[in-house]
């Protein structure tokens, strides 16, 4: 008897609430501007939030309803989407600077010295909580792939050397990996950039070199070499203004003198581990033999 009553009561309540909700859904339906859905369909739907809104739907709503919202905020969509959105909303499209994610670290397993082992949760955020990660260099990539998991476009993977690799064909420059990285070792770089600094260490030269054989040691040779003043030394780390490079420089002189090859051509799609192996070995076979054991 009781079991039948359970069925009756639960089914009855379920039906009653279901009908109330269904009725309310019709009664309180809100007419949404159909354009919002059309615009949302145009957007890439990575829900990355690079536009500054909570997701593609939120941006579609804002761009349709608010006249001051620019149609070119969608970074993954690049110009094609900006144009479509502008057309749909009747706004003028602005130029979208195409950009791509870059890992500012070349400290592979072999090159970066470790201070301790880490066997905890395989996640950079967790590893970072324990003395800032297992590498002596507290600025470098932890290599546990939190960024890879965060990428909404599946443009990232881990190389066997333990550094993230970015697929330039898939990376949309949304910047999601930049925000999840606890070391801020990933940065967005314009596609027009000529050179990049493949190091994030703000340690002083000697300490940086002890911690990692391919670190920027703040020797300022690249700064002296650049005739256009595009390279600057900030906090013991070379910083390149790629706008100056793109506009004025045709052959990057800054690359030649770097003793650790921390500054290198911004060739897209090269696996960080392999590229530096080749260049370091040919450029300077004797001087930068890894001194890991001493560390």
């Amino acid at each position, binding site marked *: 008897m*009781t079991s039948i*009553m*359970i069925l009756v*009561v*639960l089914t009855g*309540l*379920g039906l009653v*609430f*279901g009908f*109330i*909700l269904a009725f*309310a*859904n019709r009664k*309180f*339906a*809100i007419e949404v501007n159909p354009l919002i859905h059309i615009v949302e369909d145009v957007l890439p739907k990575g829900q990355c939030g690079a536009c500054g809104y909570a997701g593609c739907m939120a941006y579609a709503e804002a761009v349709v309803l608010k006249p001051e919202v620019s149609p070119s905020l969608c970074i993954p969509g690049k110009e094609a989407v900006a144009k479509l959105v502008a057309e749909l909303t009747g706004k003028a499209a602005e130029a979208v600077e195409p950009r791509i994610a870059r890992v500012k670290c070349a400290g592979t397993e072999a090159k970066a010295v470790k201070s301790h082992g880490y066997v905890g949760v395989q996640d950079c955020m967790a590893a970072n909580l324990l003395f800032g990660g297992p590498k002596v260099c507290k600025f470098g990539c932890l290599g546990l792939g939190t960024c890879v998991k965060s990428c909404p476009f599946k443009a990232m993977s881990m190389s066997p050397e333990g550094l993230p690799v970015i697929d330039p064909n898939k990376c949309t420059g949304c910047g999601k990996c930049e925000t999840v990285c606890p070391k801020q070792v990933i940065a967005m770089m314009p596609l027009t950039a000529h050179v990049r600094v493949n190091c994030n260490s703000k340690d002083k030269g000697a300490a940086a070199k002890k911690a990692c054989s391919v670190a920027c040691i703040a020797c300022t040779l690249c700064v002296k070499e650049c005739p256009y003043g595009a390279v600057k030394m900030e906090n013991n780390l070379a910083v390149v203004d790629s706008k100056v490079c793109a506009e004025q420089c045709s052959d990057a002189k800054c690359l030649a003198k770097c003793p650790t090859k921390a500054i290198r051509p911004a060739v897209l799609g090269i696996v960080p581990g392999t590229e530096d192996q080749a260049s370091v070995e040919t450029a300077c076979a004797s001087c930068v033999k890894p001194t890991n054991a001493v560390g």
Partner: protein
Amino acid sequence: MGEYFTLFMSAVIVNNFVLTRFLGLCIFFGVSKNLNASVGMGMAVTSVMTLSSILAWVVYNFVLLPYNLVFLKTVVFVVLIASFVQLTEMIIKKHAPALYNMWGIYLVLIATNCIVLGVPLINAESNFNFTKSVVLAIGSGAGFALAIILMASLREKLQYADVPKSLDGLGIAFILAGMLALSFFGFSGMIPL
């Protein structure tokens, strides 16, 4: 009258749901970063809790008790609260868009919160009459609002403090909540429930 007042004060301060019973902690920590949001959250929880307690009381006394199905109360209340919150969301979205934008995501958060489920369950277990149920619901809501507003004011002040790096954020929030709970512990036993 005195009885109702005692019940109300007991729910607000002595048996504060957040600080002495440790219910509703997820929204308590999630929303208490900002004073404005926590005031809105306090209002939302109070109103949803009151209305769902009324509904739950009706269902409990007119459906579950007569058919001897008291053991189903948890399941039934969960369904009831979830659908009620959905309904409220629809109505508010239609008739008070400004309020909807203010509450937005919090309303959905409430739908699955233990504090909202806790009050109807306590009402049912203590066999409270209608007025008592409503008083307890309003009191618990006010208690939640009090706790979250206190916490938000403290955390806003904390922005200017030099917190050790390892404790920054949630760590210091837990310590703060512990101290708040300790101070509320001083009231314990004043009104036995």
